[in-house]
């Protein structure tokens, strides 16, 4: 057994709101992939922020790097110690070029006052090559897809020739074959004897890459186990504290009349000639590679950026939806990809987020918001979706990923929309919450709502949908009934 690169113990972190970490421990040796798992809010990202020197642990924490006890008082300390991080939210500079985002770090680290662009570009090109991404180094980052941004983030971590790389949910925006590339990257990082700390909610990839697991629950350390000694179920029950079974809900009978009909929908540079019918009580899963144009298509239907051509019928009547407001009037709801920027108003309370689309419903005679009835119904939704903590006055930003997603769901369900489009509903959501969200979606369907689920995660698609559309390069490349389907069959349509 090689000697450890990093060993920490007695690490606690208290926020005004919660105790995010309650003296946990963790260690990692060079060349291993050590996965950190736990439900939303278990404290994974918090630990990462501590290891990256971005936040300081409470007193009494012990951090040993390469045998020497140290303190990480600032980001620079961590970087100098050879720890570099790929954050859950990338933390790239959208306004700068890919090259600069990747190349600048070393210069900052060495604190060289004057910089040579040639050097930076070369470094960037090299790093991009390592992660095998074809991205123009001169491109401005905010013009890249989520997926490409993710690759850039990884590249810039690689570029710092670090001894330990932390990946916080690196695949949440990656599609299948990009994930494959990531696996390769991880492999040759291991060969370079770099320690990798890996955080993810996706079982299959956890077991694919990890050598060891450390499990947190509600900020507490649970256990550390070798990957080969445990099964998925063991791991899940260690994380959640109970058993969670992934059901398949597919239900090919008793669907109602057509709720939504799309004919030849096209938008230049987004998608082309989309046709499908969606029935009441039915769940359609739309999958494909990231960048296939699924969100774009959904957002076109929802009126965020309307299509160039094509027809949309709601319950048989043709509609021309130019804005989300109109979509809402036609009973269409869209739960966007990014809950942080599009789904939630983070600095506001759960209550104001949930009631936002239906505010007018709570107006009393003189047109003011009736706080009592508002609170009453909010309590109902928080109750029904089991948002934790269940205090409507909690700020959305204080919630962990899963609970944030539940709030977004609650918001749209409360509109009683008859047509519901959910884009990557369980992105960064833990197994437990994931199952609950699937349940909710199916429950709505069983009550007659027509649902579209957009997801890159095939197990999810296979679990929730009755019918599955596969998109490729802005077109619908294939359609399946969800009956004895395999992931391979779907992928064959998704990739060329």
């Amino acid at each position, binding site marked *: 057994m090689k000697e450890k690169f990093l060993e920490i113990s007695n690490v606690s972190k208290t926020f005004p709101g919660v105790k995010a970490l309650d003296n946990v421990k963790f260690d990692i040796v060079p060349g291993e992939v050590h996965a950190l798992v736990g439900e939303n809010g278990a404290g994974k990202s918090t630990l990462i922020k501590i290891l990256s020197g*971005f936040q300081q642990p409470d007193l009494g924490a012990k951090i040993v790097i390469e045998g020497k006890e140290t303190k990480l008082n600032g980001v620079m300390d961590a970087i100098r110690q050879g720890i570099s991080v790929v*954050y859950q939210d990338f*933390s790239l500079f959208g*306004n*700068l070029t890919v090259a600069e985002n990747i190349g600048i770090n070393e210069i*900052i680290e060495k604190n060289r*006052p004057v*910089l040579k662009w040639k050097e930076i570009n070369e470094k960037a090109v090299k790093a991009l090559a390592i992660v095998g991404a074809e991205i123009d180094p001169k491109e401005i980052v905010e013009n890249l*897809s989520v997926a490409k941004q993710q690759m850039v983030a990884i590249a810039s971590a690689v570029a710092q020739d670090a001894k330990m790389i932390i990946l916080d949910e690196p695949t949440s925006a990656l599609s299948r074959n990009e994930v494959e590339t990531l696996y390769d990257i991880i492999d040759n990082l291991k060969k370079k004897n770099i320690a990798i700390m890996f955080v993810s909610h996706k079982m299959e990839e956890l077991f694919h890459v990890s050598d060891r697991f450390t499990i947190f629950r509600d900020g507490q350390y649970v256990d550390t186990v070798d990957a080969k000694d445990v099964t998925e179920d063991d791991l899940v029950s260690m994380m959640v504290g109970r058993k969670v079974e992934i059901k398949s809900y597919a239900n090919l009978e008793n669907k109602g009349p057509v709720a939504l009909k799309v004919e030849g929908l096209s938008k230049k540079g987004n998608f082309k000639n989309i046709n499908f019918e969606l029935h009441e009580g039915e769940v359609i899963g739309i999958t494909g590679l990231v960048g*296939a144009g699924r969100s774009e298509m959904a957002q076109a239907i929802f009126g965020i950026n309307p299509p160039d051509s094509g027809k949309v019928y709601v319950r048989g009547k043709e509609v021309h939806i130019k804005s989300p407001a109109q979509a809402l009037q036609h009973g269409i709801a869209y739960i966007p990809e990014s809950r942080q920027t599009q789904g939630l108003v983070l600095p506001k309370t759960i209550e104001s987020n949930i009631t936002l689309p239906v505010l007018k419903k709570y107006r009393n005679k003189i047109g003011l918001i009736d706080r009592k009835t508002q609170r009453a119904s909010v309590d109902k939704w928080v109750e029904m979706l089991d948002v934790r903590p269940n205090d409507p006055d909690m700020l959305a930003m204080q919630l962990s990923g899963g609970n944030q997603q539940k709030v977004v769901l609650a918001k749209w369900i409360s509109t009683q929309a008859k047509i519901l489009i959910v884009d990557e509903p369980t992105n960064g959501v833990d197994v437990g919450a994931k199952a609950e969200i699937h349940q909710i979606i199916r429950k709505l369907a069983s009550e007659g709502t027509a649902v579209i689920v957009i997801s890159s995660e095939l197990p999810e698609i296979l679990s929730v949908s009755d019918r599955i559309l596969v998109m490729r390069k802005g077109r619908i490349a294939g359609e399946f009934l969800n009956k004895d389907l395999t992931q391979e069959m779907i992928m064959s349509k998704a990739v060329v």
Partner: protein
Amino acid sequence: MKNFAKNFVKRKEFGIILIVVILSVILTFLSSAFLTVTNIMDFMKSNSVYGIMAFGMLPVLISAGIDLSVSATIALSAVVIGKFMLAFPNSNPVIVILVAMIVGAAVGVINGLIITKFNIPPIVTTLGVMTIVNGAVLLGTGGAWISGLPQWWVSFGSFKLFGIVPTQLFMLIFAGLVTWLILKFTLVGRGIYAVGGSQSSAVRVGYNVNRILIFIYAFCGMMAGLGAAAHISIVGQVDPNTYTGYELDVISTVVLGGASVMGGTGTVFGTTLGVILMAVLKNGLILARIPNYWQKVVMGLVIIIAVSVDVINRKREQAKLVRVDVEE
């Protein structure tokens, strides 16, 4: 070549270049005096002060900040060097300029410290500092002019290279050059763009954000100081009252030059264009014999149109952006 043309049209600055060109063409037809070397030198000289301060303001806006205190800072610097020259009648321009820049930088540092230590939003901090410094200056001077500056200063101010290029234009070019070098080739400079893009990310990659912020405001103050030197080298005496309202003119100059008040974007080239646009406008209004009572109306319209055109262009670009490579 064609490609170059394309990129050129894509540039953020394209909109404003267009406006400047159109204006100039119109003016050239309206007045023979417009397109002459002397006229151009004249209006660049008389706008050099705004220009210099604009280059100081640029990094501030890039960092998503704002500095309202520049008008007070320039007043303070002007008064200080005015008194300095009376006290040391045989010093020399270089020293005077240095003094001005140091005084300005000092005010900037105070801004920076308040912003970083108490994280009070820049607009608030600088508003407060503006009120205080302004009050102090006028309390101290009673608004009295400082005149009778030494001869060497007067001749420094009225010097023209080859009898054409005025001193103040060199100061302007110097300011622009320094700003450009800092923004493009120094770590701090890139840090400024980083902070403007995402402050939390800037912290995560290891930029010392506080130090960067303090630098930004110090630099802005310093340029205001240089502006003071340029200004009193033009007018030959110090009127502490003359600088009120400068802050808004300077800021509008920079944003006309394509810097976004949301931060993250902005270039020296753009700002230069902004300065030129403002200069051409003021100069043109008179040469074109626009009725004086309508000048402000024209000014206001041009500002609104210019910023709107810019935004509309950018939106069109965004819309054109291919989000998915659709299989045809």
